[in-house]
């Protein structure tokens, strides 16, 4: 490891340790927004692991998240909670592998539309299964898991995603993905199995999203398909990752925190226009900061340093 890496590693550990202290602040409001931020931190970071280097915009996050929730909701009366989380993870991995195999041949906008349609498709299936087999339209998840526990679980998962992302960036796989993102033709003729590389990363982000859904299920207590499979979730993941900058591992988190604070304010102030606000946020980001906060910061750091010396 270089000195820079050791420094960044130390900073990351300190930040995670500080974040872990939030539940002790004693404020229900901050804990609640902390869980939301931690949720999107994990989702956006894992989303960017795949979409950052390859430029494939996936809107399937909501589908995986919803599956995670429903695995927990459907099995909580029969299987211990942690067993369900593990099942959700495995199911997410298998499903994302299948979807990856089927869709990663699609390029650009076709991939985007497919993943969006997929989320809706899975939601309809789940709803259908529920109404034909079950009695009610929702599921109860009653556990003794408290909000601080959920928060710490998400932080641990987030730390794991960071480590994985750091390792991938240094590995041949990460190098292959950057080449693929630049020019797939060059990648193929350099000997890269592009389908394999993309599927591996798609599995990582799909599995993580499913796990997040499973971890959050106890928070909701009552799970309904319209909440679990909300397309809004997929869009927010994309927006926060782009706002922060999907090209850097730490990019999404820089986007998630300000976005969630602003979002909380907007939904409280304009409860009926949230979708409109979301659209405006998206437009502003794309026009004003195409490379995200990470891009802005990296552009200005050399200037600041230059001025100092």
């Amino acid at each position, binding site marked *: 490891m270089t000195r820079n890496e050791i420094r960044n590693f130390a900073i990351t550990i300190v930040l995670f340790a500080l974040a872990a202290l939030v539940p002790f602040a004693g404020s229900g409001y901050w804990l609640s927004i902390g869980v939301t931020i931690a949720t999107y931190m994990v989702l956006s970071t894992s989303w960017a692991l795949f979409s950052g280097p390859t430029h494939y915009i996936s809107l399937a996050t909501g589908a995986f998240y919803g599956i995670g929730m429903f695995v927990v909701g459907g099995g909580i009366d029969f299987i211990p909670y942690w067993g369900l989380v593990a099942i959700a993870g495995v199911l997410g991995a298998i499903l994302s592998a299948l979807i990856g195999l089927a869709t990663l041949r699609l390029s650009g906008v076709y991939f985007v539309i497919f993943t969006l349609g997929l989320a809706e498709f899975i939601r309809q299936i789940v709803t259908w299964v529920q109404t034909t087999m079950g009695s009610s339209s929702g599921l109860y998840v009653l556990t003794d898991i408290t909000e601080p526990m959920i928060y710490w679980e998400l932080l641990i998962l987030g730390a794991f995603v960071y480590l994985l992302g750091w390792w991938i960036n240094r590995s*041949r796989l990460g*190098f*292959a993905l*950057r*080449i693929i*993102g*630049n*020019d797939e*033709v*060059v*990648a*193929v*003729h*350099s*000997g*890269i*199995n*592009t389908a394999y590389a993309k599927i591996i990363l798609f599995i990582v982000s799909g599995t993580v999203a499913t796990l997040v859904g499973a971890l959050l299920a106890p928070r909701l207590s009552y799970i309904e398909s319209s909440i679990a499979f909300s397309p809004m979730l997929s869009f927010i993941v994309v927006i926060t990752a782009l706002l922060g900058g999907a090209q850097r591992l730490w990019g999404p988190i820089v986007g998630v925190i300000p976005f969630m604070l602003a979002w909380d304010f907007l939904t409280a102030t304009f409860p009926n226009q949230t979708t409109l606000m979301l659209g405006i946020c998206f437009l502003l980001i794309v026009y004003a900061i195409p490379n995200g906060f990470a891009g802005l910061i990296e552009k200005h750091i050399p200037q600041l340093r230059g001025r100092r010396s």
Partner: protein
Amino acid sequence: MTTRSALSVKNATKRFGGLIAVSGMSFEIAEHEVLGLIGPNGSGKTTMMNLISGALSISSGHIQLFGQNISGLSAHSISRQGVARTFQLVRMLNSMTVLQNVEAGGVFGHQRLWGPSLQFQAEEMLEKVGMTVDMDSPISALTYIDQKRVELARALMSNPRLLLLDEWLAGLNPSELQIGIDLINKLRLEGRTIIVVEHVMDAIRSLCDRCVVMNGGIKIAEGTPQEVLTDEEVIRAYLGGHDA
């Protein structure tokens, strides 16, 4: 010069729907040989190169690399077997540095390097193709010939058993052209096996051991540059018939 066959193309045909772009092409290249693939525009040269490198799948026929069938393999597998190429329109990895662009060729292909040995080899390769620009510069800072150099260095990074140069000299000005010809000649003297698709006749005369001439997707002549460039049918293909 040995007579071991490096590449053998037998009856290669490529159809795009009703259009036959390459029809029943057969030719051989011996190891250490430089073969020129020439012909008028639209004669199927680039399609032929794409069939060899696996960018396009073959409709019928066979292609063998050192006795092993490579037709039907995916492009990345063919690359791992030792076929490297450059592109008619230069292809750069724009978000990466010059050095990373070159390194990209040496990690996943026929030669799989990583870490210090990768960087060492990439630096050496840049020097070999005559790059004098800072290796950490962005690609946007490069002139056209330097981009061509980077692309060549990337292809060489895999230590290919067969190198395909698709109009590598196109678009260079006269002084750059001489530099380019000298560079390919250097590779030839190293004993590399190369197929060049070229329009620049000076380059063909000075570089190629043998030429295959294509027109309308079929082979119309084969022989030394001297022979094929004086061939009646070749002249007709390039310049039109006597009655024109």
